[in-house]
Structures are given as structure tokens and as C-alpha cells.
């Protein structure tokens, strides 16, 4: 195909995403924050798309949090990552898929560093051998799990039971997409659309029927920023950044937010409660907040999975008004029922922001 003009420019912003046979590594924190997201990703890959995806229970953290908090040096992180690659090599896979944005940025940074400094790669190979007698091959393709959902977004749309559309008015929902900073801000060529026009989530929203909102602080950080949150004295800086984003998106009246990073949905969701308690301000309709989702949760919602199986009861901001808007059925009395209908107990509800 011959690309011309803008098409030609846009082709520079694309990345090669492998079709099948993926080695998957989970995030350290996502399973605590949004526990069904990674499970739903595996479910979609295996049972909806029919792909070969493998995960190994022996993999560990990538060391990204400690690295970005300046707790451990890069050589340590590299050795941890080398071990993950060794596990992939032992399993016979070449396509490495990370669930976490920071891990994805970390792997990209390390592969680029080894590319520039081969002697460092040799040193890490030696360290890994001394530490655990393992050897590794570098992945042929490195992708973030949102890249895969993006690649197969139209297949998901074909199988979808719901669309991101207001069932009463027929209007597309107004959706804010928020990309994790480590996805393409460090290495723009490694993300779909680069750092300037990241399209990975916008593509999903458009395919599933929603309208993407463009607002002034669209590319601003969610406020997590590792050291800005992990040091308690800096948390005011963290929430001030989140507040800035919400103030900027508020006039556009978003129905929902979709994110592709472990930290972003957590902070955009939980800080809405803190802002409501501190300032008495909420950003959704009728005293509710703006619900924040991971892309796997949204994929699960449009595919018709039960909202409580997607773990939406663990969100701080109530998701029910949005489910009603789309027309997704749910059972309010089952919200706080776990597996086998076991009661997982209803939490204390806050006073500043409306919740169920």
C-alpha cells in the first residue's frame, strides 16, 4: 500500500503488535486495586479471541516502583527483568506482554539501554547466571496489554452486547481517555500514536461507540508520580495534579474515564473521594463522581459480563448511574457478594460523594 500525506505521517506513529502467542506478566498492584481486570484480559484473550497466552506463576515485580522511587539502582532492575525474560525463554515464547504501564516503560528503557550499551547487557547476563543460573533471549516483540485489546478492538465490537451509547437518547457517551505516562512519553515510537497522538484508548472508545473528549489537560499526569504519592509529605502535590485534571475536564461533562495504567484509575477514582471530603466538590451528575475504568473492565462491560464479576464494586466512585445509562443490567443486592454469593461486607459510605 502506498501511503501519502497525512496517512504517511500517521504510519510513523504505528507499532507492530504480535497477533498471537503471548507471554503475559501481571502488575504488582493492579490485582489489589482492580482485581478482575487482569483476569478479564486473560478471559478475553483465551475465550473471546481464542488466542494463545501464557503466564508463569514464578514471575516477580519488574522493580519499577522501587526504581522510580530511587530505592534501587538500574542494574538491580535490569537483573530482575533479565530473570523475567529468562522465564519467557524457558516457556518458549518470544512476544512479551506487560500488564503494567510502568513495567512496559521499564522493559522498553532497559532494552534500549542494552541496545546502546551492549557491555551492560553482558554484565547483567553474568549477574543473572551467578544469581540463579538462568539465561535469556530478548523478546522479539514487546507490547502492553492495552496494545492487544486495541489491535482486536473491532473483533470485540462485533461480539459486543452493549455499546458506549446512552440508551435513552441514543447519543454516544462522552469519554475521557487517560494514557499512563510511561506508555509513550519516554519512548514515543513504542506506543500507538506516539506521545503526541496516543490512540490506543481513543481507538477502543471509537470502536465501541463512544465519543472521545479533548480537553486542555488531556495529557497531564494523573498525579500518582511515585515519589509524589509514596512520600506522605508530597501527597498534596499528587492530589493537586489530579484536581487540575478534573477542573480541566469538568466543563466537558464526561460520562466516564478509561485508563490503561495501574496507578491512573486508582488515583483518578480515589482522589475524587478525597477532593469531595476536602473541598465538598464532586465532578459527576447529582453528587456522584465520574466513574473511572480500566480498558479490560470496559471491554468486559461491552461484552456483557456481570459488572460485579468485573470487580466494579471495588471502585470508590459509584458505577451504577453509568450502567443505567448504557442499559447494563445488574443486581444491586449482589454488589457486595463475592464468589459463591459469600458476603464480602458493605464498606462505610462517605458523606462527601454519593455512593451505593
Amino acid at each position, binding site marked *: 500500500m502506498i501511503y501519502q500525506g497525512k496517512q504517511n505521517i500517521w504510519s510513523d506513529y504505528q507499532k507492530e503488535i504480535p497477533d498471537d502467542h503471548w507471554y503475559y506478566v501481571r502488575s504488582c498492584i493492579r490485582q489489589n486495586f482492580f482485581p478482575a481486570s487482569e483476569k478479564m484480559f486473560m478471559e478475553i484473550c483465551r475465550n473471546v479471541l481464542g488466542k494463545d497466552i501464557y503466564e508463569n506463576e514464578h514471575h516477580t515485580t519488574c522493580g519499577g516502583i522501587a526504581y522510580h522511587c530511587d530505592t534501587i539502582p538500574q542494574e538491580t532492575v535490569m537483573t530482575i527483568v533479565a530473570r523475567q525474560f529468562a522465564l519467557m525463554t524457558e516457556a518458549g515464547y518470544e512476544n512479551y506482554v506487560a500488564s503494567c504501564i510502568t513495567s512496559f516503560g521499564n522493559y522498553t528503557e532497559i532494552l534500549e539501554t542494552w541496545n546502546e550499551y551492549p557491555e551492560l547487557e553482558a554484565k547483567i547476563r553474568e549477574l543473572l547466571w551467578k544469581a540463579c543460573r538462568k539465561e535469556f533471549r530478548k523478546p522479539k516483540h514487546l507490547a502492553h496489554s492495552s496494545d492487544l485489546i486495541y489491535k482486536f478492538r473491532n473483533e470485540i465490537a462485533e461480539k459486543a452486547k452493549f455499546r458506549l451509547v446512552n440508551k435513552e437518547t441514543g447519543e454516544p457517551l462522552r469519554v475521557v481517555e487517560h494514557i499512563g505516562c510511561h506508555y509513550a512519553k519516554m519512548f514515543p515510537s513504542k506506543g500507538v500514536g506516539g506521545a503526541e497522538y496516543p490512540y490506543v484508548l481513543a481507538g477502543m472508545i471509537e470502536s465501541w461507540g463512544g465519543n472521545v473528549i479533548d480537553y486542555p489537560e488531556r495529557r497531564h499526569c494523573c498525579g500518582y508520580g511515585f515519589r509524589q504519592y509514596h512520600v*506522605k*509529605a508530597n*501527597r*498534596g*502535590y499528587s*492530589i*493537586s495534579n489530579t*484536581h*487540575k485534571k478534573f*477542573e480541566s475536564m469538568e466543563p466537558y461533562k464526561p460520562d466516564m474515564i478509561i485508563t490503561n495504567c495501574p496507578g491512573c484509575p486508582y488515583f483518578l477514582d480515589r482522589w475524587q473521594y*478525597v*477532593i469531595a*471530603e*476536602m*473541598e*465538598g466538590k464532586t465532578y459527576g451528575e447529582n453528587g456522584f463522581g465520574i466513574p473511572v475504568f480500566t480498558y479490560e473492565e470496559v471491554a468486559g462491560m461491552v461484552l456483557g459480563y456481570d459488572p460485579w464479576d468485573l470487580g466494579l464494586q471495588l471502585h470508590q466512585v459509584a458505577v451504577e448511574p453509568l450502567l443505567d445509562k448504557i442499559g447494563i443490567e445488574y443486581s444491586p443486592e449482589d454488589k457486595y457478594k463475592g464468589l459463591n454469593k459469600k458476603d464480602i461486607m458493605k464498606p462505610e459510605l462517605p458523606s462527601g460523594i454519593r455512593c451505593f
Partner: protein
Amino acid sequence: MMNIFGFRLSASSAIDMDKVDRTLFDKLCAEEPDARRCMSCGSCSATCPAGEFTGMSVRKVLHNLQRGKEREALKMVSSCMLCGKCNMVCPRGINTRHLILSVCRIYKTEESR
């Protein structure tokens, strides 16, 4: 409201230029077109003998006036000794001393009204 969190929101430092009243800055530019010729190289700040002790900087004065932060600009200007060193080093040949006097005249006249 009581803050139970141990940290608080800080105000954004972003400046909304749509809300800045630029009447006086436009008046300054009309009388002193050099105000628009500054390229913010900082040579004036580097040579200013008052800068190290008082924070005076012609570059920052112009930035603050453009951004509607007049109080900060006038506080800086009050530290100027009119020695003219900035005048000598400006690569754009701006008569900075005259510019500062014009700032004092236009803004302080307006302030005293």
C-alpha cells in the same frame, strides 16, 4: 471542612491569559515598543548588581507584566538603581533604563489613581 488527611490541595500556578487584563501592558508597548523586542536571554539579569540581593530582573519584570502579575513586577522595579549595566549588555539594543522608567510611570500612575 475538616481536613483529616494530613495533606491538602495547593492552588494551580497555571495562568489563564484570557482572564489577564492587558490594558496597561498594551499601553506600555504602544509607548515603548522595545517591550516586545525582548527575547528573554537573561543578559540583563546576569549583569544586574541589584539582582543577587533583591531578585531584580528586567526579564522577569517583563514576563510578570505580560502575565498580569503587576504587583510582583513593581516590587522588583523598586529595587532598580538605574545604573544602566543592563542597557549596555542587551543584544537587542533595548534601552532598558528608559523601559523601566516607563513601567514606573505607566503602572505607578495607574496604581495611584
